[in-house]
């Protein structure tokens, strides 16, 4: 093996190594690709209204991200949201509510911890849900003076 071919092959090897490391960083760190799932599981939640919630929105518990919104679909007039949970066990009586980051921020799902000993199995359902606060309706009621309680 002469010196010239050693240089070429080393150069290409170095190029491949650096390029693949960059691809891996972009895919796994930034692109959030999970090769083996890492104990992820799905749960479903039924909401009367999910206005403003988008796919890939965060699912948090105590402010810490524990999953993402995987899918939103309509079923019997209600919105059914499928959540991908990153391996955190959820008690059977957790409450999922749709909240907003700041005043004009994106919608996300906040899950408050439950007290039950039972866990929600994969593909199970969150029973207690709260739809997002309808700010427009509240402002409308305030502005137009219809303050009767619903």
């Amino acid at each position, binding site marked *: 093996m002469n010196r010239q071919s050693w240089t*070429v*092959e080393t*150069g*290409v090897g*170095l*190029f*491949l190594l*650096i*390029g*693949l490391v*960059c*691809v891996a*960083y*972009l*895919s796994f*760190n*930034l*692109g*959030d*690709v999970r090769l083996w799932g890492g104990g992820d599981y799905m749960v479903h939640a039924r909401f009367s209204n999910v206005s403003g919630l988008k796919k*890939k929105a965060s699912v948090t518990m105590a402010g810490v991200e524990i999953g993402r919104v995987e899918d939103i679909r309509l079923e019997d007039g209600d919105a059914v949201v499928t959540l991908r949970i990153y391996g955190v066990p959820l008690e059977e009586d957790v409450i999922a509510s749709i909240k907003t980051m700041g005043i004009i921020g994106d919608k996300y799902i906040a899950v408050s911890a439950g007290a039950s000993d039972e866990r929600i199995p994969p593909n199970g359902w969150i029973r207690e849900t709260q739809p997002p606060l309808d700010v427009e309706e509240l402002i409308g009621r305030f502005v137009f003076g219809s303050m009767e309680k619903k």
Partner: protein
Amino acid sequence: MTDVWHLLNQLGRWGLNHVRGTGRAGVFLYETVRGIFRPPKKFHSVVRHMYFIGTKSFFVIGFTAAFTGMVLGLQGYYTLSKFGSEGLLGAAVALSLIRELGPVLSALMVTGRAGSAICAEIGIMRIEEQIDALECMAIDPHAYLVSPRLVASLIALPLLTAFFDVVGIVGGYLVGVALLGVNPGAYVDGMQKSVEWVDVSMGIVKSILFALLFLWICTYKGYYAGVDEGRFGPEDVSRATTDAVVISSVAILVGDYVATSLLL
């Protein structure tokens, strides 16, 4: 009357030449792709071309990427600070690099550095009748000359694009965080929250498309340098090289628009 006939003749010849050229370019690409699976074996040839297209482009790509990221950091900071949202700088820099600037700028730089050289090399082989000699020896010139370069560029350009993205993000970080005082946690967190796999895959698909485009055009122009004119001189190679770089650059920008509209 003869002038009108002459004009019509010229118009017809111009149209036919372009139709013939387009068809020939299509057949050229078909022969090149088919040549990947035909003898001779290409491993060492692919490695040699990857060294030329990939390894030797490292510095120019690194410099371009660093300064692109730095200028994005500067511009982004002054725009975002008007709205008090400097924390979004990481997301702005990373998304612009990964979705658009990384694939396009690295393809343009590689076209300028490697595409022109490839075109000139194959063009010189044409005017020195080396391609005819290959055909005389029953060696398929497409499989021998063009296919290894196509494989090498299809592997090298996506990797160079990823390198461009990462160096650009670091450049944006240096300017945004070290120079202008953006919160480092906000920069990295904003980037990680906003970049999705679909953005990364879009960049990779685009860079594969651009690799195919620039190599196809540069090798085609070199392969047929001076053939239509019927004379094989150095000026035909230089004209082919200029055409190759100009057409490739325009094709990359047009291809970028088409790919973005299809992938979004």
